[in-house]
């Protein structure tokens, strides 16, 4: 409130009065006369100019009120976090809490601890929200006593979260974070850290082998919760892990998507939870321009793919494919075209996967080709393009159907935290076209068509789409209602 007031009520015509003495005072401390003149000069200009300056229109300041990144809270200071954590946030350029952070943090940090089920769009700061909770709950005078456990569906995501905790907590003394993934915990010592991030299978093994003392765990976080609780294997594992933990533990469930049936289960899993759900029209990220490329046939997809990189400024990009074979083939072609490429799919071993993804994270390679392994959660902030080389499909009742959630999670790899992002889906035959149409209908997206015939025209079109991406009216996509 105070902050808003200061933004708005400062009367423009008073400013020069305040400024003049200050600036003049500074000038007079300068050591030569010429400079004084200059300063005066500056002040005079300031005087006349400021009297003409018009305050920024409030409509503009408030324009993003509905944006998931806008919370009305002007800094993290107001959330009562410790100084070390605040410094860590500033060091990574986190300046203001996003909506999910501003809303969820007070609830998660309040005592007695209450469970939480929170939904927010991809790339809006969910990870930071629960990481801040974890860092605030842990007692760092016991650095090797496990106090917080975070579960993620893949080793990549677990390592990523581990990295985020270490980054935000870089100024926190005695912070130890271990990754409970295959090969992540010493077999000799077991878990020796206050914060543990892991995949459910490994975590359960550790507990069973008595290498993970869970008696003083205070917080359990499950990221990508719908996916974790929904899948047969993962869901069971999560439940078994939970049953091994203290009853009093605070449970936090996070995801960008929460289909209804999962939500019901989640409510049982985390009883009496506070819930933050998305309004339906908020589901897709507005900053992502969604397009599709109309390819004449499957064989030409490779060449068209390479051409895309000249159409716009691209930082890093992710290409989702269906099979390992096509992943390898695309890699070959793109490397021939000068790109540095990482390919990541199930065939790679854990440690190797880490190295490949690290290359991509560190910017040593800028193209990541992957199967669905990485559709969820992976956050590389400079990803500015996502390509659905194949439309995501899933098996439902013995038939192949377009996979709505996966589409949403895939394109959510770009447009992180309000940045510009582009997604391009390739269609080349009736089947792929129909699948994409169904997805577009489902979310109510107006997909822009691109054609590979005239690259000058296509380039122009892409530029226009990117330019107008923020001006587009809100569509009303609706996962919750249409589900099932």
């Amino acid at each position: 409130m105070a902050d808003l007031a200061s933004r708005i009520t400062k009367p423009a015509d008073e400013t020069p009065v305040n400024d003049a003495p200050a600036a003049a005072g500074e000038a007079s401390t300068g050591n030569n006369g010429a400079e004084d003149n200059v300063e005066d000069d500056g002040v005079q200009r300031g005087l006349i100019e400021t009297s003409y300056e018009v305050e920024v229109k409030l409509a503009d300041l408030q324009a993003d009120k509905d944006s998931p990144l806008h919370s009305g809270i002007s800094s993290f200071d107001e959330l009562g976090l410790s100084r070390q954590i605040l410094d860590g946030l500033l060091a990574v350029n986190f300046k203001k809490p996003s909506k999910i952070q501003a809303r969820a943090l007070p609830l998660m940090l309040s005592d007695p601890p209450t469970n939480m089920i929170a939904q927010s769009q991809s790339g809006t700061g969910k990870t930071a929200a629960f990481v801040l909770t974890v860092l605030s709950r842990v007692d760092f005078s016991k650095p090797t006593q496990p106090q917080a456990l975070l579960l993620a569906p893949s080793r990549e995501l677990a390592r990523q979260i581990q990295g985020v905790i270490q980054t935000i907590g870089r100024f926190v003394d005695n912070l130890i974070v271990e990754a409970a993934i295959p090969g992540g915990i010493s077999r000799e010592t077991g878990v020796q850290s206050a914060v543990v991030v892991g995949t459910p299978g490994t975590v359960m093994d550790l507990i069973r082998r008595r290498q993970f003392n869970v008696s003083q765990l205070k917080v359990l976080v499950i990221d990508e919760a719908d996916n974790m609780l929904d899948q047969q294997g993962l869901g069971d594992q999560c439940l078994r892990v939970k049953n091994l933990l203290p009853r009093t533990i605070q449970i936090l469930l996070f995801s960008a998507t929460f289909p209804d049936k999962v939500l019901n289960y989640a409510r049982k899993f985390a009883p009496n939870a506070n819930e933050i759900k998305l309004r339906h029209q908020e589901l897709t990220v507005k900053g992502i321009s969604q397009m599709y490329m109309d390819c004449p046939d499957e064989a030409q997809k490779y060449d068209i793919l390479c051409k895309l990189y000249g159409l716009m400024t691209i930082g890093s990009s992710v290409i989702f494919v269906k099979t390992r074979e096509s992943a390898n083939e695309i890699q070959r072609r793109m490397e021939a075209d000068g790109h540095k490429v990482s390919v990541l799919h199930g065939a790679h071993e854990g440690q190797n996967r880490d190295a490949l993804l690290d290359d991509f994270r560190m910017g040593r390679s800028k193209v990541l080709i992957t199967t669905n392994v990485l559709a969820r959660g992976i956050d590389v902030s400079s990803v500015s393009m996502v390509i659905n080389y194949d439309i995501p499909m899933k098996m439902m009742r013995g038939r192949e159907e377009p996979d709505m959630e996966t589409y949403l999670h895939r394109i959510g790899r770009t447009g992180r935290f309000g940045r510009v992002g582009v997604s391009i889906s390739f269609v080349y035959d009736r089947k792929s076209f129909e699948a994409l149409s169904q997805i577009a209908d489902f979310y109510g997206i107006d997909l822009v068509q691109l054609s590979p015939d005239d690259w000058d025209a296509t380039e122009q079109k892409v530029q226009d789409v990117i330019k107008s991406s923020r001006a587009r009216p809100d569509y009303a996509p609706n996962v919750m209602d249409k589900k099932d």
Partner: protein
Amino acid sequence: MASSSPSRQPTNHWVNGSPQRSVLDELYAEDRNSEARHRYLLEVAKQEHERVRKEAERVYLEQLKREELQRIEEERRKEQERIRLEEERIRHEEQLAAERARLNELKAKKIEIPPPLPEPEPPAAPAPSRTTPAAPAAKQNEPVQINGPATKPAPPIQSGGLFGSSGLKPAATAPSIGASLFPSQLTPAAQSQLPPPAPPASSVPASTAPKPNGIGPASESSRSAAAPEARTVPDRYIEIHKNLKLLRKSVMEQAKTNPALKSRLGDMRREIRKSVGQLTVASGVAGVNKVQQQKINSLLREALSNQVQSQLMEVSNFVLEPRNPVQGAVNNDAVLPSIFLYLINIFAKAAIAQFINEAGSRPETADPVGICVAATLSEPDFLWRGKSLIDMLLAKFRVVCPVLFGHRGSEKTEQGRARIGWWKDCGRWVSEQQHMDRMTGLGAGFAAISLRNFAHSKKTNPFPPREYWAAMARIVNTPAADISGTQCTVLKAMVEGYEQKFIEFYGTAALAALRTALIEFPARATQRSPAVDALQVVAQRLKRDTGLVLG
């Protein structure tokens, strides 16, 4: 007997604790005074006690929960109420603000007639120092002077200015280090760097300090010498920027009638954009971007050969100062093929776009682009009359990141935002997050271009480190009241990840500059903001991660 009494129901109330029902039994029981009986009754009482306590606890906890829920509910209501009130207030104030703006406008109109108004352009510190015509005067004869910016700033500017009193100590020792470091490193670069930045030029005469001062004069001239200049000479970079737009139009027009040009133009443009986008962080491995560099060079050479017969165009429209033919230069004519100039423009544009879009979120990605820019523009084939065409890139920088050139403004006013390069998208200011991202990318990009070491290269550095020093000086010399978050963000991005290079170039002087930038400058800011705080955190991080203590 023992079996008769424990039948007490757990649901019994405390009243049943007294043995009314079985008083007789009790009385007549043989063991009514036995110790066992006594113990038994004690036990029963204890259990009852526990039950009651548990029940009480449960009720208490429930109450707590209820209260907590109520509190949360209350909070929510309050929050909503607060939002509503605030919105109301904002609406109210919006009206007030509009009224006031209208009033100001009216007032302004009145004043407008008598006193000659300053041009709308002159912001805080206008034209970059390089515009000063005095520049050529600064023929760098002696290495010492060349290193002017490199060696230590004398304390001339405002006393509170660049370096606080404490900062002067390291400053004094700097020259020795600087002198030993720089001559070898910078001299070759500086020599050919003919349009030497005004800083050294004006500093040499102005401050008779033992060592010429890079910072002082830079800011001095940008504020003093250059300021009046800018009145008569409108910002040259802005002119160049306009000329570049005309160039683009002209080339597009030519393409309509020149099929050879049309067929190559788009492909070449996209190839350049792609190649710039493909540049990756080297991580100490040499040559990772060799292919891209060669590709860009070959495209530009192709354009220079002008096989597509694009029109020839005056190059002087795209450089800061007039140039005369230089002996031995590859391109000495007054004109060059427009497709070549166009592609240089596209290359510059691609670099800037990469800074904004990619380095904005990951500043470290600016470095390979900076290397590529310096390498490409310093290619002898792409020089004009012996000097690089980097002014085309700088003109873009001037437009998208004016604070690097000493421009200032309030982030709370329309004009202030326009002056500091806050972007508009479809008529609306972009969000603060986006703006700060852009500034981060551009600050990192600027550092990536200006902190290149050409000591081991035969080529001439198109944008030597003194430009970095000068830009930093222009920011840190801002009067306290004018310090903006934008400046802090740009400064942070310029410093972070480049501390080491900066120190390599400037030695102890760099430490003093860092101290000014990371400690004194944010401490001076009258308005605290996350951007200001973040600048201070950089110093903490340096201390923690590298052991570099500035404070």
